[in-house]
């Protein structure tokens, strides 16, 4: 039982349905069959009693004249005639009022003048019944555990009885007749089963399949993101449909939540990094300025040997490189700048044209800015340049780079796409960290700087793979107050 209960709904629903259908059909068939059995019994009793009545009158006159041969002929002919019909007559006995045999269609088994009691327990029982039925016209007797049934008819006229006609029927006729009647019931049952079972199986599977898929996906939750459900799998608005909807909703919520968490973790990390970088930069900048001033002073002294001069120059270049790097790390977007003009954007296009020309790229440029907007022009240009340069580097030879700039819902939207190599999710996770580079020759600070600027301008930057095999960097910056 437990095995059955543990089965998949895919099998349980059709099996359970089939079980119920079979039970119902069997019950209905059984009632048909039981009815058929009763009907056969009733029909046989009626037929047998009819036979008795048809013989009664001629038997009466034959017995009245003590014409044994005629009595015998009447019952013999009747048994032959009846045996060819539905009623199977095994023997016909005519007994007198003392229950002695007057004639029988099987004289050897029931010789003349033998008492019925001597003819076996069954006929002995029948003899008792004959005594009891004196007043009755006819009666059909089914003895328990007997292979026969007996139809008794009183051979009487005007209440004068000469004896009793005992028609012995074999119950063997029951079975074929019963089968004949029952066969119809079974046939109907079989037809119903033949129609209902496949239908039930199909319907059960149809019903269970969405549940099964849903269960499989639910089991995957927490381990990995399950595949999307086929929207055509179940399109109805019943409880199952609602369950599907709820599942999809849940899945979406979970995904959003996780994405949000990832974003928070990432921005927290980047914020920490930025803080650290800024802190270090400040700490370095102070001594660095001193050292650079000292080097300058030292260079002004002419009595230094050439070796010293060479060393000073070396130190100066090193310190300058440190300064540049620190400056790059320390992004300061709070510096005042003029507002952004559409022309600033167009300038960027002009700036990057030589680079894109080298790779024979097609730049899909779409700038919908028409007016001056309240954002620092320098930083926006830097963001745009960084993104475009990355895109051009990543783009394939003779590939395509697209750039959309526009205003939407109080934000400046910058979107840069390229058709180059796609980034792995692992790479995307660390994309905006400093010194993170995926190309030869880059110092790995471009996107860091971009991120820091966007962040300091209160905007967001995101990257995602587009279905059309493009990497798409999107920047949204809320418009500031007009200067």
């Amino acid at each position, binding site marked *: 039982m437990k095995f059955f209960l543990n089965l998949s709904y895919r099998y349980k629903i059709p099996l359970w349905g089939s079980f119920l259908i079979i039970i119902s059909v069997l019950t209905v068939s059984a009632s048909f069959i039981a009815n058929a059995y009763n009907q056969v019994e009733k029909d046989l009793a009626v037929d047998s009693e009819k036979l008795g009545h048809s013989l009664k009158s001629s038997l009466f006159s034959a017995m009245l004249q003590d*014409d044994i041969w005629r009595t015998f002929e009447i019952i013999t002919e009747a048994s032959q005639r009846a045996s060819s019909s539905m009623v199977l007559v095994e023997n016909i006995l005519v007994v007198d009022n003392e229950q002695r045999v007057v004639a029988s269609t099987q004289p050897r088994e029931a010789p003349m003048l033998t008492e019925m009691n001597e003819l076996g327990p069954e006929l002995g029982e029948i003899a008792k019944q004959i005594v009891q039925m004196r007043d009755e016209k006819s009666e059909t007797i089914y003895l328990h555990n007997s292979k026969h049934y007996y139809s008794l008819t009183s051979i009487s006229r005007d209440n004068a009885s000469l004896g009793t006609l005992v028609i012995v029927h074999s119950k063997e006729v029951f079975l074929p007749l019963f089968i004949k009647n029952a066969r119809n019931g079974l046939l109907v049952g079989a037809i119903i089963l033949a129609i209902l079972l496949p239908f039930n199986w199909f319907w059960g599977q149809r019903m269970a399949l969405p549940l099964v898929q849903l269960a499989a996906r639910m089991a995957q939750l927490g381990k990995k993101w399950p595949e999307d459900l086929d929207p055509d799998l179940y399109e109805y608005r019943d409880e199952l449909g609602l369950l599907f909807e709820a599942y999809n909703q849940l899945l979406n919520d979970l995904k959003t939540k996780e994405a949000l968490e990832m974003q928070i973790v990432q921005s927290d990390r980047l914020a920490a990094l930025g803080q650290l970088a800024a802190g270090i930069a400040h700490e370095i900048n102070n001594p660095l300025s001193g050292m650079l001033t000292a080097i300058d002073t030292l260079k002004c002294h002419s009595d230094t040997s050439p070796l010293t001069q060479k060393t000073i120059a070396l130190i100066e270049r090193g310190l300058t490189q440190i300064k540049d790097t620190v400056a790059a790390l320390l992004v300061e977007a709070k510096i005042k700048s003029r507002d952004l003009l559409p022309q600033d954007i167009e300038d960027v296009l002009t700036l990057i044209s030589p680079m894109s020309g080298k790779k024979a790229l097609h730049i899909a440029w779409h700038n919908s800015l028409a007016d001056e907007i309240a954002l620092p022009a320098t930083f926006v240009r830097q963001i745009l340049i960084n993104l475009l340069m990355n895109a051009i580097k990543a783009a394939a030879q003779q590939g395509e780079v697209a750039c959309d700039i526009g205003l939407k819902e109080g934000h400046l939207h910058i979107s840069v796409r390229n058709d180059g190599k796609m980034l792995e999710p692992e790479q995307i996770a660390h994309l905006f960290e400093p010194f993170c580079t995926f190309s030869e020759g880059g110092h790995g600070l471009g996107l860091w700087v971009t991120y820091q600027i966007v962040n300091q301008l209160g905007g967001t930057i995101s990257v995602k793979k587009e279905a059309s095999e493009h990497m798409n960097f999107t920047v949204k910056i809320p418009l500031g107050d007009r200067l």
Partner: protein
Amino acid sequence: MKIYSKLIVVCWMLLVTGAALAEPQPLRLGITSATARGQYALLEEWRVYLQNKLDQPVEFIFRDSYLDNMDLMKQKKLDFTWISSPAYIENMQQTSLLVTPLYRGKPYDRAYLIVPSSDRSTGSLLNLKGKVFAYVDPDSGTGYLEPRYRLRLAGSDPDQFFKKTFFTRDHQKVVAAVAIGLADAGSMSGFTWDTLSLSRPDITDQTRIVAKSAEYGFPPIIARNNLEKHDFSKMQRILIDMKDDPDGVKLLTRLNIDGFALSDKKLYRSMQLMMRRVGDL
């Protein structure tokens, strides 16, 4: 003129006798169940044969028992009847013997005492005390009188000897009654048993002949005494001539008799004595 007068005489005669000539009275022959032996188609052919030979309608009248036929004859509703020997003997005064059939060349039949073939022990009639016995008809010689006579001779009362007796009205049915075991034994015409054994040996094989009696006169065809002499002799001649006529021989063969012969009361003397002995006369 002479021709005309002759014609007138002829026409007058035709007018006078016309009615009688147009519808001659049929001759009626009574048949009992015992003599019919179920061969109704054959009897019909025989009737047509007789009708053609006699050039006169012939009717066969069927009754169950000899007694019924004798009653009809007394009422002049029958001209002839094929009847059992005792029935003839009882009515000798009112009837005349027409012909007696010849069986195996002789006008005799005998009684067979039969038992079921499963009964191997019965050796004579006297072994059958307290049994069920089948007779043919109370007027039958071989199927009633003969066994009763034997019992009388042995000093038994035929009415007490058997547990139960019954009549089948037909010799063949005695065979059936014994074969299926309705009766423990029966007595019947040997001629009928022999004839049945030719057509239905399967039935006669179920019986065993315990005893064959002496020969008695074969049941005759008799005529009522007051029958026209002309009809009597015409019928007698046609029947006797059957054995010399090809069509007649065919019918006789199927009836399993050799022909019909002039009869004599002497043939029935022994049976008459038997009847006296038993007390039926």
